[in-house]
């Protein structure tokens, strides 16, 4: 009983039978998942399999068609938006493209959540805070820049500084390394590890970059056609018997698909096409 309580207390986020439909299209189907406190959980899967939809449910940017979402054992998916606004201050979210506000400078982007939540901080302290957050991601000195003047990797680092501005307990990363070269991808990976270590946050990363997944994960979950088909640590995933998992992690088409492609065929047998494509 005590062990069970301990396990429950150790869970930061929980999805219970989560199903999401857009019109008639089922994107997620009966996902049940418990995410441990202070650990890094990586969700992998082919494009269009519902990874981003899943991560947006964790912060209730999308509401489930069926099932429930819990944060620290409190059900949050049915809360009204005004209450969710308070709940969301426990989260930091790094969007795929950074989603920095174009019309604001780096400094103003980072103070945005602080000002919105009326935390009573003087200007000097605010400057110091921004400096600290930017230094954490190696971007101190860029306070006066506009997002348009930053490279893709720099934008993501600034967006990360903004995501940690309110000292969140959970950081969600949506494809953090997509569109970056290998060196910049590694910088982001190191930052994810550093923040997890230094701030002790619970981390959920959605990616299809296996190098990144192996490097940062405590646990990897693979989604395929809206369902979880593999769940375990990096070694478990590497040695998973399922052929779909092996094809994905090795980035290889099946022999049949290769043959069809070489012959100029268009009807692939691949299991990586989304369901509505079939």
């Amino acid at each position, binding site marked *: 009983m005590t062990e069970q309580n301990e396990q429950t207390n150790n869970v930061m986020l929980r999805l219970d039978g989560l199903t999401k439909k857009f019109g008639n299209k089922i994107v997620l189907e009966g996902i049940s998942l418990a995410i441990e406190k202070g650990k890094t959980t990586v969700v992998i899967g082919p494009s269009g399999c519902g990874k981003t939809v899943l991560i*947006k449910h964790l*912060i209730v*940017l999308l509401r489930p068609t069926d099932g429930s979402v819990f944060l620290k054992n409190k059900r949050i998916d049915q809360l009204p*938006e*005004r209450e*969710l*606004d*308070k*709940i*969301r*201050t426990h*989260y930091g*979210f790094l*969007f*795929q*493209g950074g*989603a*920095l*506000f*174009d019309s604001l400078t780096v400094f103003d982007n980072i103070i*945005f*959540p602080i000002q*919105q*939540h*009326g935390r009573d901080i003087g200007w000097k302290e605010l400057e110091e805070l921004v400096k600290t957050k930017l230094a954490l991601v190696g971007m101190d000195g860029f306070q006066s820049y506009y997002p348009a003047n930053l490279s893709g990797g720099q934008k993501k680092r600034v967006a990360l500084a*903004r995501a940690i501005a*309110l000292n969140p307990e959970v950081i969600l990363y949506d494809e953090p390394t997509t569109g970056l070269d290998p060196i910049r991808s590694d910088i982001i990976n190191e930052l994810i590890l550093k923040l997890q270590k230094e701030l002790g946050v619970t981390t959920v990363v959605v990616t299809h970059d296996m190098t990144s997944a192996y490097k940062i994960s405590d646990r990897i979950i693979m989604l395929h056609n809206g369902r979880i088909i593999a769940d375990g640590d990096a070694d478990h995933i590497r040695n998973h018997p399922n052929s779909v998992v092996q094809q994905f992690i090795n980035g290889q088409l099946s022999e049949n698909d290769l043959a069809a492609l070489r012959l100029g065929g268009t009807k692939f047998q691949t299991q990586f096409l989304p369901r509505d494509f079939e």
Partner: protein
Amino acid sequence: MLRFFSEKTVQGVENSGQFARFFAQSLTASARSCLQVKSYSLVWAQMNVIGVHSVPVIMITGAFVGMTLAIQAYDQLAGMGLEEHLGVLINISVVKELGPVLAAVMLAGRVGGALTAELGTMNVTEQIDAVRSMGTDPMRYLVAPRFLACVLLTPFLIIYADLLGILGGFFVSVVQLGINSRAYWQFSAAGVDLWDLSIGVVKGFFFGGAIAAVSCYKGFTCKEGAQGVGQACTEAFVGSFIMILALDFALAVIFKAVYSTIWPTRILLL
């Protein structure tokens, strides 16, 4: 064929419902913003963009409306020897109908298009989701300031359009067509009531609200990609234009009823 029409009907009803909900949320968020001093700076910034920057185009619109009316109406009135009444015709048309409607249409193009493009781009680049993810209500942060700025400043912009329309009409009538200035103003003063001026200005609150609501809604529901943003801007302008015309008709009916009921008793009230 039947299926196509039934699908379109269902879609139309769904969109109307979504828009009504969005409009109600905009009103609630705007009312809350009025009570929060920290929101004033956001409204102020939007007032500058939406109101101050629109003054030149609105004045140009008004001036051309007045001048064109003078040229068009002169021949008919002169044929009957009533050219000195030209001022009444121009000024009543400008303050009651053409000034407010054309100023609103100009705003729908200038301001509505910009609002939809800005919010649409924020939507497709996930900036609106980013606002929500940081625990801020996008209706309060993004929609309410724009809605309030449009509602509060459209009547003032209509006053500018009216003023330039009147001056434009005067310039063409008196300077170009040689109508007696004193007669022009005397007939105008006798024919144009405070009521006429007021209803034109009051229309501005409704037109401003319609432009902001339609444009913000289209921005928030914009589809992905450059084509999605472009399509949203077109739909926002067409939607705002139709709303302006429909509101103009509805308000004309309402004001006529109000005028015939209340206006004759004003002497007793004053």
